[in-house]
């Protein structure tokens, strides 16, 4: 597949995510849809990579810390030719490498995640490695909002800031919903921008579905002498009206009719 528009790419990511989750009767479609625009901009406009050489030394490193939303990442990698679209059919099937939490056994996936609070420390380790060897590649890590309950993220942010790791970009998928209810009602994280700034980071807030805002904030030229944090305001279930902002789509998978309706709303035929 050859798609050079991030907007079109995001539609296909959403469509394949829906299809994979539906077929596998898997969970986490809502979070997959909330990060699809971020992934589309990253893989279309920001990250340096060669899908035929997934371990290319000077590639940028992307880590999906919210590993439960891996369907969207697998879809992105397939569309970008790391493997075939047909491979996505084995998502969450017996014996498949495409397990329903991010798996490093899949080409292009740097790190297996699934337990929250692991991606950022790992990303910091990679950023330290790049700095210590004077490498120009950069590290991008995508976290969920609920994941910020995990203390390891704040340990890692302290460290990254202390060591001025300006080759590290932390993106927060701030869709305001976590496992049982809203972030606000679970563990308040506001004022989030102030928190990251108090930790010494360079913080911007963007509409996580606006590709121009994402491109501008994710741009490698847009940096200071500290880790960059992008708080991406998103909508869980984005693009499918009956899934948007509904906590049950953290768990449910669309049946055939719902898949059909969802694909119609996304506007992509597979």
């Amino acid at each position, binding site marked *: 597949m050859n798609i050079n528009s991030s907007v079109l790419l995001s539609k296909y990511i959403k469509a394949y995510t829906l299809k994979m989750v539906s077929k596998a009767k898997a969970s986490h479609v809502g979070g997959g849809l909330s990060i699809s625009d971020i992934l589309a901009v990253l893989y279309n406009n920001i990250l340096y990579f060669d899908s035929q050489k997934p371990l290319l030394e000077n590639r940028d490193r992307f880590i999906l810390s919210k590993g439960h939303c891996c369907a969207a990442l697998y879809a992105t990698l397939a569309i970008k030719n790391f493997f075939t679209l047909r491979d996505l059919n084995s998502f969450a099937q017996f014996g498949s490498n495409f397990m329903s939490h991010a798996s490093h056994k899949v080409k292009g996936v740097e790190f*297996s995640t699934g337990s929250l609070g692991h991606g*950022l*420390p790992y990303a*910091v380790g990679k950023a*330290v490695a790049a700095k*210590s060897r004077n490498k120009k590649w950069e590290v991008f890590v995508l976290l969920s909002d609920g994941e910020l309950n995990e203390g390891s993220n704040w*340990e890692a942010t302290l*460290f990254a800031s202390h060591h001025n790791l300006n080759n590290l970009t932390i993106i927060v998928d701030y869709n305001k919903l976590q496992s049982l209810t809203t972030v606000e009602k679970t563990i308040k994280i506001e004022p989030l921008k102030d928190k990251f700034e108090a930790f010494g980071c360079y913080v911007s807030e963007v509409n996580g579905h606006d590709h121009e805002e994402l491109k501008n904030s994710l741009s490698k030229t847009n940096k200071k002498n500290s880790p960059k944090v992008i708080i991406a305001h998103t909508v869980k279930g984005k693009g499918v009206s009956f899934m948007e902002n509904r906590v049950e789509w953290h768990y449910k998978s669309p049946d055939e009719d719902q898949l059909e309706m969802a694909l119609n709303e996304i506007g992509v035929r597979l």
Partner: protein
Amino acid sequence: MRNYFIDLLTKEAKSNNKIMLMVGDLGFSVVENFKEKYPKQFINAGVAEQNMTGMAAGLASEKFHVFTYSIANFNTFRCSEQIRNDIDYHNYNVTVVSVGGGLSYGALGYSHHAIQDYALMRSFPNMTIYAPGTRSEIANCMKQIFKSKSPAYLRLGKTLPKNLKKPNQPHDYAPGKWTKILECKNRESKKCILTTGAVIDDAVKMQKKEEFSNYHIYSLPIWGMKYKTLQAQQINKWDEIVTLEDHLEDGGFGSYILECNSSIQKVGETKIKLKSLNKNVCNTVGDQDNLKEHFKFAH
């Protein structure tokens, strides 16, 4: 033990710029020389073991050989999921180095008693446990660790054995292989005390007692899930084995040997007895020698 470890690591770092030593804000009067000589290969991660261990995985993914150094429970139990998911599952080249194995820090209380660490670390499929008891074993463990590209746990006790003048150990030995420490007078005896870690002195004291005078002393300093299949042949040579460890019985070294014994084709019955720490040590504070004496360790 820790000083010898750091000397060997410092020597290796001279010719190997992939070595990265991370400390969890510990190592006063131990790590300074390394830090001065190789500042770019030294990181103080602060009092944050989860982050230190996750970062170690990230560094190892970029071909560093990372050593995470702390007091036993802090860089094991505190960050056990980081070891499980980030290091062991990805089979990264990270060596978790714990000082204060067993009751080395007995007087500091239960938080510092490292007496369940084998149980945790031996549950990881890719992990090799290195529990040296002699200077020769430390050197051999480090040699193996430098060669290895897999996760490792190096458990260091407080001191080297005082009651062992010269062990009968060879210069080289392999993971999973028992090594002879001291023969008993009856060279034909088919009984042995099998140790792991810094309990060689205790084994020597045991052997001096009438009851165990007929037991050779062997150690198994390098072990783990990967080496279980190597144990059958070694266990079968003996009529009786008494395992000795400064760890609780559950999930420990003796349990490991028992598991190996239960899964093998028996040539003959080998009687296996376990000697470990009394669980009541958890509620008692005192220096290592007092605690061991009080709870009749290795009696």
